[in-house]
């Protein structure tokens, strides 16, 4: 049901994001999807990578603030209206979406979802036979 997402604390300084990326590159870790949430003072980089465990280890070693969170991931059909129909299911259950991003991997379209109620969200995914993907699917 879930996938490991890296969360890295980013200070709002020139070149800071690239320092994170450089570390990942150095250890040959592939970035599959990436999004940055920002405020005026700092941001959080969220990323789906090829080897989250190793990414955590090497970023920590380079003194970055980094954690791994398990996050909902849903494979979508690449057709208009698919994402809307999925989100309708959550709205109907009165679940709030905290953030969302989507990416393509090969022929797959993948929705990454963070809600205010993870357990209830998993139930919805199961009940509606939505296809979840894991790290293994992305290798």
């Amino acid at each position, binding site marked *: 049901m879930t996938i490991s*997402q890296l*969360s890295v*604390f980013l*200070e709002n300084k020139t070149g800071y994001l690239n320092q994170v990326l450089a570390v990942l590159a150095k250890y040959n870790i592939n970035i599959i999807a990436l999004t940055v*949430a*920002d*405020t005026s*003072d*700092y*941001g*959080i980089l*969220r990323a789906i990578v090829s080897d989250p465990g190793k990414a955590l280890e090497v970023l920590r070693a380079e*003194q*970055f*603030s*980094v*954690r791994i*969170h398990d*996050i909902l991931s849903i494979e979508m059909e690449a057709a208009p209206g698919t994402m809307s129909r999925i989100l309708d299911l959550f709205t109907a259950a009165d679940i709030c979406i*905290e*953030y969302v991003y989507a990416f393509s991997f090969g022929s797959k379209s993948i929705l990454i979802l*963070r809600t205010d109620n993870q357990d209830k969200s998993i139930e919805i995914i199961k009940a509606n036979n939505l296809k979840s993907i894991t790290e293994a699917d992305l290798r």
Partner: protein
Amino acid sequence: MNDESRLKRQETRGILKSSRLHTKESSVAFKENNTRSNERLIWNKKMECMNRAEMRTLQSERLIGLVHRVYNNVPFYRKKMNELGVKPSDIHSIDDIVKLPFTYKNDLRDNYPFNLFAVPMKEIVRVHASSGTTGKPTTVGYTKTDIENWKEVVARCLTMAGIGKEDIMQISYGYGLFTGGLGIHYGAEAVGCSVIPISGGNTRRQLQLMSDFGSTVLACTPSYALHLADALSENGHSLRDMKLKTGVFGAEPWTENMRLELEKKWGIRAHDIYGLSEIMGPGVANDCIKHIGLHVHEDHFFPEVVHADTKQPVADGIEGELVFTTLTKEGIPLLRYNTRDLSTLNHEPCQCGRTSVRMKKITGRSDDMLIIRGVNLFPSQIEHVLLELGETSAHYMLYVDRDNNLDTLELKVELVESQLTDTIRDLQNLSRRIEHALNSAIGLHVKVTLVEPKTITRSEGKAVRVVDNRKK
């Protein structure tokens, strides 16, 4: 008021008015004004112009009385004096003051709330308090006589600044537990001012009433006075609408340059009123129109300057820690209270006619206490709040700045990894929790910025926790 003095007052006002309009000529007008109405500018000639020998006799008598009072009524002082092997009978004159123990801010905190009071609570008619280092405030109590004496010394200060019956005084110091507002208030009424007790804050209303009521005197912190000056045009006012002629500024250290800047910006005469709640509140000292040091009301507050390390008294003109003994205080009399403010003393008579000792304008402190918008702040208070919350590391840097002439505080604090989540909201809530906790502990708004762990410089010696970017 007799005709002569009314005439003099009118002259004074006329001259001051012209000095406002023609700033270039102000120094000339100023001198003239000074020589003509010198006598009017002294509230209590007997005390303020007493010859040195008589003053020392008076101080000696008062010190002897004080030492007996604290020894008999305040267990803290009895213990301290016993430890030093000093009895009240060892004090014969003011020169013996060096035998007495010092008092520090910590002592007030340790005796919170009322244990240093020398009279029963039924004699106390008012309590003031200021923020303390660990959340406990510093509490002071006043008897009826203390309040009368306070009124008297403030009246002297205001008169010294040329303020009198004709003046409309806008008191923009905070009223309440802080001594600023109420402290000035009664002295201002005593000299006959029309008092506007507007208290602090609300810049728009301050300027509106200043204009509508024709305030001639403004009492507030120097930084707020500067802020108000700069806010004139954006609030639709100009200096032309204002009748302000005098400023009584204090509650934070400010330089001579700042004083001149305020005089220029407002077209007024700016005076420095010094005080601290532990000793009385505003009114301990004030500068006369000569502005060469602040006259200390030494019949009430005996000043010494001591070396910061040895705590030995130093000669006139040598800088050290300013120490006061409250010769007449009944509620909470203090022996040799070390203010940690740095100053020098000057016992030469002043050109204004006063003989009272003058202290140099305070420009610094011997400890790390900051004064932010008139509020005392020790960096250790910040640390205390962070440790109590326990949600960040205790590594922080406090940046003090002046934005639009108001002091601002920004706290950079290191995030701990366990607090990092994948949502911004969690981090913002964390900052907000810290801001709330700081606000309720120190009464000041602090902007909290989370930074990366281990990015705040660790120092090997004494940690540098504060960067004060306010211009001196």
